């Protein structure tokens, strides 16, 4: 995984729990060099170790941590590092979600070692869609859930996302039902 993912987790933990907690998590995860470089690649298993350590230190289920990361990624990290790309992805929640697959595919054209997830959108009606999510990495569904909620934040929408079916049901991907509506002010 790209270093920027780990930097985002770091930002999330430091903002919410402080630098000392982050240091404790890294220590527990057995990370020697705490400085992540955004464009460098790190082993995927490191993410699992860090989330596991964070779960123990913060006393939160790993799924909650992944959801929080997904939301933080969309509302903080991506606008900071990839703000123009985010803007380029679309001017509305639906437009961005529909362009997610294209954007990830284009990134993989530039960075051939990048293993991006794939997204397919089924529009079910106004404010409702089914999101098909495929990834070579298993167990990251909660991250997608957090990202959708964060994307809703970006456009002032309340987003509800519910896992419907997935790999545990014998599919080769995960499916979510997403509903979104203007947030009451």
């Amino acid at each position: 995984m790209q270093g920027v993912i780990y930097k985002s987790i770091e930002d999330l933990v430091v903002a919410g729990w402080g630098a000392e907690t982050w240091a404790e998590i890294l220590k527990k995860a057995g990370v020697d060099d705490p400085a992540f470089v955004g464009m460098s690649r790190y082993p995927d298993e490191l993410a699992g170790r860090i989330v596991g350590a964070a779960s123990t230190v913060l006393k939160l289920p790993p799924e909650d941590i992944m959801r929080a990361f997904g939301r933080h990624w969309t509302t903080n990290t991506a606008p900071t590092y990839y703000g123009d790309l985010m803007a380029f992805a679309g001017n509305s929640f639906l437009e961005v979600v529909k362009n997610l697959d294209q954007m990830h595919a284009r990134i993989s054209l530039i960075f051939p070692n990048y293993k991006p997830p794939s997204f397919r959108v089924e529009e079910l009606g106004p404010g409702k869609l089914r999101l098909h999510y495929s990834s070579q990495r298993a167990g990251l569904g909660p991250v997608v859930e957090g990202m959708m909620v964060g994307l809703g934040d970006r456009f002032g929408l309340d987003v509800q996302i519910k896992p419907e079916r997935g790999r545990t049901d014998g599919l080769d991907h995960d499916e979510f039902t997403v509903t979104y509506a203007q947030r009451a002010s």
Partner: protein
Amino acid sequence: MPAGEILSLDAAVADRLFPFHVVLDRDLRVLRVASVIKRLLPALVPGQMLDRVFEPLRPVGPLTVESVSQLANTLLILRSRQPPPLVVKGQIAPLADGKLMLLVSPRVSDADEMRRLNLTAADFALHDPTSEMLVVLQAMRASLMDAELLAKRLRQTRDEALQASRAKSQFLANMSHELRTPLNAIIGFTEMMSSQIHGPLPERYVDYVNDVGVSGHHLLDLINDLLDLARIEADSFELKPSRFQISELIGECLRAVTPQTQKKELTVELLESDPALTVEADERAMKQIMLNLLSNAIKFSRPSGRIDVAVKRDDSSYLRISVADHGEGIDPSTIAWIFEPFRQGDHQVSVGSEGTGLGLHIAKRLAGLHGGTISMKSQIGAGTTVALLLPPVRVVGVEKSP
């Protein structure tokens, strides 16, 4: 589709495949404008002349009907004459019906440009590589941000480390001072007891008192070294420059080490020296450097060996004061770190040398404070030459002794 034609597109499909195209007549008058470029440039309407909307950057010169035949094979770069500032690049293609098709897409040199133009991925044809270009630009920007952040962190860490080091040095300086005061009393009273000025000591205590004296002096040397090092590292070692003849200083140092040279029956030869050569330097520091170089040479000389001392100006007018022993020599790989504090060459350990491991380091730092340095050359079995180099500015000429 007539024979020879391969492309006949529905307008909506053409719009999706070429969202920035413009159909022109042979006079370069606009006939049809694709949706996205129409949104960006409202002035681009049917009936308008192309050169009223765009100024050509490439090819250089006006866009004319006559030049159109050449334009089919030319990269076109056009800049909008009215806001928003938009540069497009592409080409003109002749159509079968005699019309012309301007096929362009926006130039992207900055990731902000897409945002300024309010262009999104949906505005581009899927085959258009502009999106990938944007990914590259964004990755470059992200890398730059990352590099700046890492550099900032490194600076912070370095500053913190320097601050901690200065605090440590200050503490060391204070402690060394506090330690030296009682130690001087211990040494003084030990010497008094050793001289038996107030009556004889039992014989077994004479040895003990001598041991206390030797240990006390060793401890004092160590504390003095630490104090010097702490001062240097805390940037509080102030040079007190004065003018003096270097040969006199070397003479004093040689006299000071005479007991040690005699003990090992060493011969010390002053090979080259201009007796009137005068330098401007901190005399005490120079003496400390010379005593360190001499005591090392004595330590590592074989009994009845020879030490050569030479003073001369080299080709660059640097003053070079070298001390050469003819002892066991040092492995060249050791020389790389032998000037580091608390390090001693392995050979020194093997010959049972004692010392704080600070002497050479301090000597080099003191030389550095004078704008000079200390170099070392050695050969196993042949001996070691250590040279103090002082820059020309420290050599003030030749003065007669008063």
